[in-house]
């Protein structure tokens, strides 16, 4: 097998340098080249053995690795070849003009954390700054609320400050638009997957403003990279440092009387990094390991971000050159700051590994690397990926194979995905249509299938919330549970049906659907015909004869929109 791969590599390399090798997998430098020449990747999907036609397999592939097939997309995938389509998705570098164009109206999306802090200060901060700048007399705050609000508003306008809510609105909008229109669908799906895995929440004020950059700079660029890098970057991000409180964790301080600032060890991050991010709850670590890991990670914090924070703490930091910072054992890396003075310099033992006394920043990096490469981590992550893409209860044989790849390929996420899709379990009848769509997948899937035009994403976002998934606001570090029984219950199911009706009837503001355009401008002649035509668009390659038979007659004189709404709210559309 190895020989074959090597030979293939030589052949590819000989083809004029159009391809480069990433690990063992050949990936095209430019997808345009591939679309013309159709060089298949070096793996094969065993769908025929599972009794699937190529079209059925393409539909399955699209249902798992995109937010839903667009009209004609099954054909496109078949034409390109399933493996080639998947390779392009793994490469994730298709031009995205359409989504880029839609995102230009959102000016906050490209801001650094520093710029965010200076443009969208927290509400409480604005008031403190206004008092500091003498715009508001702190005693007047008591007297006239309305007047004080006006003054504050003027102050914000003068300073060019905007409300924090606006930042979050733009951030939520971009998620909807990318999911609906990005060509690099797998990248969006995996970004969602890892965000949920390394969950942070807008509900927590301290970390909220840093979440847009967290998704943009930490999650998305590493969503198809190596797990250990992803882990390290989340650990060092302000969003995670604030969300799980590691920024405050320090070696115990003697004689500390300051009540304002809780000093000492905080185990929250250390516990969750083992339980939720790497080893899993049964990953074989003890409370002692948690405490020791927390000690290793003391001093990991955030460099003051924004003028307001800098005016306070950073005055002295700013006087130091990078060299001076480094000489003191401090580390300043972007927004990350390692404060050697807060670090516990004693000896620690985690999972039997000794971190000798006198260590600094590097021992935290070593700890995270060690966690990323544990067999328990390989299994835990592989299982979670399989739950996302195969079924709520994936077979052990599949997880073992994926975990083996994870270990052998140094946590290369692309390789783990390839192993999964190349396994018969992925194509098994036990996996087909077994996953229940999340509310987000229902909403975006319907928009994609109907070529919907999202002008204003918030009304659609609010529908997703009503169906039970308020994106970016899940409080717990576990992230949303990824299983049908979580999403489907009495209340949420009715909302899914109502969503289908509202969408198809054009009752969701800011979202345009042209149903007739999907049928070349023709109105179907009967409800049965409508069910057939639009059933095929919304649910390609599914057997809908039962649906047509049962519902067709009931819809006798009902409009086209209602018929489409019923397909979206039907049980079949809830499955992927």
């Amino acid at each position, binding site marked *: 097998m190895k020989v074959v791969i090597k030979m293939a590599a030589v052949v590819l390399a000989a083809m004029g340098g159009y391809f480069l090798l990433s690990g063992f997998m050949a990936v095209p430098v430019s997808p345009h080249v591939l679309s013309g020449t159709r060089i298949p990747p070096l793996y094969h999907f065993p769908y025929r053995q599972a009794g699937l036609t190529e079209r059925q397999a393409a539909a399955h592939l699209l249902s798992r690795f995109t937010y839903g097939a667009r009209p004609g997309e099954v054909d496109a995938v078949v034409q390109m070849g399933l493996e080639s389509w998947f390779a392009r998705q793994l490469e994730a570098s298709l031009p995205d003009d359409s989504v880029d164009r839609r995102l230009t109206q959102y000016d906050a999306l490209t801001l650094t954390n520093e710029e965010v802090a200076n443009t969208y200060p927290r509400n*409480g901060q604005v*008031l403190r700054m206004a008092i500091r700048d003498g715009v508001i007399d*702190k005693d007047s*705050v*008591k007297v006239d*609320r309305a007047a004080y609000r006006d003054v504050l508003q003027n102050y914000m306008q003068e300073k060019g400050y905007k409300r924090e809510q606006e930042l979050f609105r733009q951030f939520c909008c971009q998620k909807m638009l990318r999911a609906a229109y990005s060509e690099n669908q797998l990248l969006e799906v995996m970004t969602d997957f890892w965000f949920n895995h390394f969950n942070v929440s807008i*509900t*927590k*004020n*301290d970390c909220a403003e840093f979440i847009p950059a967290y998704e943009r700079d930490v999650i998305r660029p590493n969503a198809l990279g190596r797990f250990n890098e992803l882990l390290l970057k989340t650990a060092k991000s302000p969003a995670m440092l604030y969300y*799980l*409180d590691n920024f405050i964790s320090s070696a115990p301080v003697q004689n500390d009387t300051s*009540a304002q600032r*809780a000093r000492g060890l905080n*185990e*929250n991050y250390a*516990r*969750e990094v083992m339980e*939720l991010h790497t080893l899993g*709850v049964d990953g074989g670590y003890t409370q002692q390991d948690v405490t020791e890991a927390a000690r290793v990670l003391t001093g990991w914090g955030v460099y003051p971000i924004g003028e307001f924070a800098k005016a306070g703490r950073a005055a002295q930091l700013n006087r130091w050159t990078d060299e001076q910072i480094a000489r003191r054992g401090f580390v300043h890396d972007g927004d990350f700051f390692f404060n050697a003075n807060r670090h516990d310099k004693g000896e620690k033992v985690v999972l039997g590994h000794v971190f000798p006394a006198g260590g600094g920043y590097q021992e935290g990096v070593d700890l995270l690397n060690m966690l990323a490469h544990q067999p328990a981590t390989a299994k835990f992550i592989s299982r979670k990926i399989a739950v996302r893409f195969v079924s709520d209860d994936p077979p052990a044989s599949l997880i073992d194979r994926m975990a083996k790849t994870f270990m052998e390929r140094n946590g290369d996420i692309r390789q783990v995905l390839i192993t999964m899709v190349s396994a018969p379990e992925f194509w098994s009848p036990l996996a087909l249509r077994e996953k*229940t769509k999340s509310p987000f997948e229902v909403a975006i899937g319907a928009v994609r299938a109907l070529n919907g035009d999202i002008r204003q994403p918030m009304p659609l976002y609010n529908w997703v*919330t*009503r169906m*039970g998934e*308020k994106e970016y606001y899940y*409080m*717990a*570090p*576990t992230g949303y*549970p990824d299983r049908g*029984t979580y999403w*489907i*219950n*009495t*209340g949420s*199911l*009715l*909302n899914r*049906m*109502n969503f289908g*009706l*509202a969408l198809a*009837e054009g*009752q969701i503001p800011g979202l345009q659907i042209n149903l007739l355009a999907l049928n070349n401008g023709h109105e179907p002649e009967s409800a049965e015909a409508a069910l057939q035509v639009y059933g095929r668009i919304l649910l390609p390659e599914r057997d809908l004869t*039962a*649906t047509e038979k*049962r*519902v067709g007659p*009931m*819809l006798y004189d*009902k409009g086209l929109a*209602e018929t489409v*709404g*019923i397909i979206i*709210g*039907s*049980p*079949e559309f*809830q*499955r992927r």
Partner: protein
Amino acid sequence: MITRRGFLKGSGLALFGVGLMGGIPGFLAEAAARDKRLMLYKGKRVLVCIFQRGAMDGLMAVTPFSDTWLQAARPGLSLPAVAGGRGSSLIDLDGRWGLHPGLKAFEPLFREGRLGIVHGIGSPNNTRSHFDAQDYMESGTPFNKGTASGWLNRAVGLLGHDTLTPFTAVSLTPALPRSFYGEHPTVAISNLQDFAIQLKGNPAGANVAAKSFEELYDQTSPGLLHNAGKESFEAMKLLQQADLRNYVPANGAVYPNSPLGNSLRQIAQLIKMDVGLEVAFTESNGWDTHFNQGTDNGIFARNVADLSNSIAAFWRDLDANQDYVTVMTMTEFGRTVHQNGTGGTDHGRGSCNFILGNNVAGGKVYGNVPELAMENLEDGRDLPVTTDFRSVFSAVADAHLRISDDKVLFPDWVGSKAGVMKVG
């Protein structure tokens, strides 16, 4: 006419009838233990929890009015203990504690012995972050972030019977609260009227759509979607029977036209419809009074008036159902003893909570609140937490819902239940 028995339809248990609920045959109990069956359980005991988000100033709600340290710390935030001056005064409960005048609707309930107050309640974790403190209080594990479930979801799992209805646990909130996260089925809904198939401006179309959906979910392969579909439509029909829109509260009860008032009104409707509600949740916002807290007027006064008037109207409206219902409030922490520079108070530690019910050992302010001299304060600034919230929550869950497995309800907690409920 759909009745509660509708839930039994099509279930294997229907053969055994309602009478057998207490003594289910072994093989069925085994199946039920794995996954509780969704069918009617006439619970008849309802715990209603109200989360006051933002951290209520317990010292202003229920004031130790003769504490001179407090008066000195809050020159601008104190109310007179005795009537006579300008504005209203505190309501003297027992010679030591004074109820904020905005809470006057609570006074009769307290005097009748139905309303109990716990002062100095809070979390052993001294975080002063709203997010963390709410998270810990709702998960019920103050030192563990990764607890996936909320304490009320675990409570649902511990209900001493093997059946649930779609309405066993209902949160009148737009999104599922942290307290409800978990394995057991719970519902979040902001308005009961939304529990229907809706098509704006086209009720006839909505009817046809509803019938079509019911058909489709009925014909789909057995499993999650099939079952949830069936429950949804039965639940929907059940609610449609009641004239939700034209509901008239009993005994002339008048709910404040506020989010909390509306939520409690709908919880009362569910209780009266007898749909098997056992755990209800809702919330009240706006308690984070850093600025302009006010005294007998202002934000705080409006908030407490809304809280007490909503709860009092709910209680009045419950009428004959009062015996089955206990209401408990909670808030993530209290506020600083000293007023701050902007006419408000900052994040503190201990606060107080209210428990209302006929099985509450009420008419008393529980807890162990010291004199508020600097040396008695937590970190030199806050009302110390002297009662762990879990000792109160578990006491209420035990007495009212007959849930005694504290290891599951509050893992990691070692302590004794607060004696806030009547014995027996």
